[in-house]
């Protein structure tokens, strides 16, 4: 039952990336040192004058090696970016909604990419439907300073999707109950 909601989606979609362990596309695997580096920095870099040197010391390697590994993980896409990770709420973006759309499969790739370029959309993903209870396959996170501001966003999105969209829903967030960085278990 649950297994059937989880696994088939992962297996049936052609061409999707295989869900993996900490794996690098080029080498087939991330080294022990890469894993340690991820574990050590998932809560952020140390805010000291020489952060890479500080990490190197903890890992028993050189700062150059640490920097080289970051470059490699950036190049492979394992790391998307390195920098300050802002908190939308604290910057005044207090209205946030998850918009979900039932978009015709034949057009969802083209239209999903269009939604993904909108300035107020922070994430836009294709996800599996869970029929009959859940008909939506396109998910887009929308951020604004006020709830009222978001209505114009929804209208624009509706226009872009046009007839290819059969239904949509907007799920406003009412509370953040937990928000932490990505965590991996360190026991592997």
């Amino acid at each position: 039952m649950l297994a059937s909601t989880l696994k088939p989606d992962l297996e049936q979609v052609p061409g999707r990336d295989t869900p993996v362990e900490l794996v690098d596309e080029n080498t087939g695997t991330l080294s022990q040192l890469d894993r340690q580096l991820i574990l050590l920095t998932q809560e952020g870099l140390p805010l000291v004058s020489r952060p890479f040197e500080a990490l190197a010391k903890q890992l028993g390697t050189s700062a150059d090696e640490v920097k080289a590994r970051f470059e490699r993980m950036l190049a492979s896409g394992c790391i998307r970016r390195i920098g300050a990770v802002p908190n939308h709420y604290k910057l005044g973006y207090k209205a946030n909604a998850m918009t979900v759309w039932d978009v015709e499969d034949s057009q969802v790739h083209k239209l999903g990419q269009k939604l993904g370029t909108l300035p107020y959309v922070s994430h836009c993903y294709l996800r599996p439907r869970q029929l009959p209870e859940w008909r939506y396959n396109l998910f887009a996170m929308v951020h604004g300073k006020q709830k009222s501001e978001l209505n114009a966003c929804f209208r624009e999105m509706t226009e872009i999707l046009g007839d290819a969209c059969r239904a949509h829903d907007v799920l406003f967030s009412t509370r953040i109950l937990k928000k932490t960085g990505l965590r991996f278990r360190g026991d592997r």
Partner: protein
Amino acid sequence: MKPEIRNDERQPALSTLDKAVLSRYQKNFPRTSRPFLTIANELGCSEQEVLNCFQRLKQEGVISRVGPVFNHKKAGASTLAAIAVPNEHLERTAALINGFQEVNHNYQREHELNLWFVVTASDQDHLTTVIGNIEAATEMKVWCFPMVRPYHIDLGFRPEFD
């Protein structure tokens, strides 16, 4: 145990340096031996000012961290998940879910499926196990919405400062 609530209404005043840092360094954090000095040179201030700025932004919660943003997909296995919780059980269920270290986001949303959270694990087997454990702990069905395809790559966010 009450779930942690982070909807702090207070919005800190941002200095010119804060805004410059937030606008320019969500990506391309310098990979130099003294990155804060590199930033200081680019912005025309001192290394200590830049370090103080990042430390304070972090302390005030304006940024959650300065560091790498990992691609969950390539760096492990993850899924968006949701539960439909009756209101009277909401606090207890949220606390149970938050107790899992594999859960890194949990939002209450206005919908019958009212708790939405992200589960991240080192691999698919571990992810499946954790989902099962959450179902066992909450005695509720967990709906899974794993990402099939991204249409937007998170390269940071361009805040409009008032």
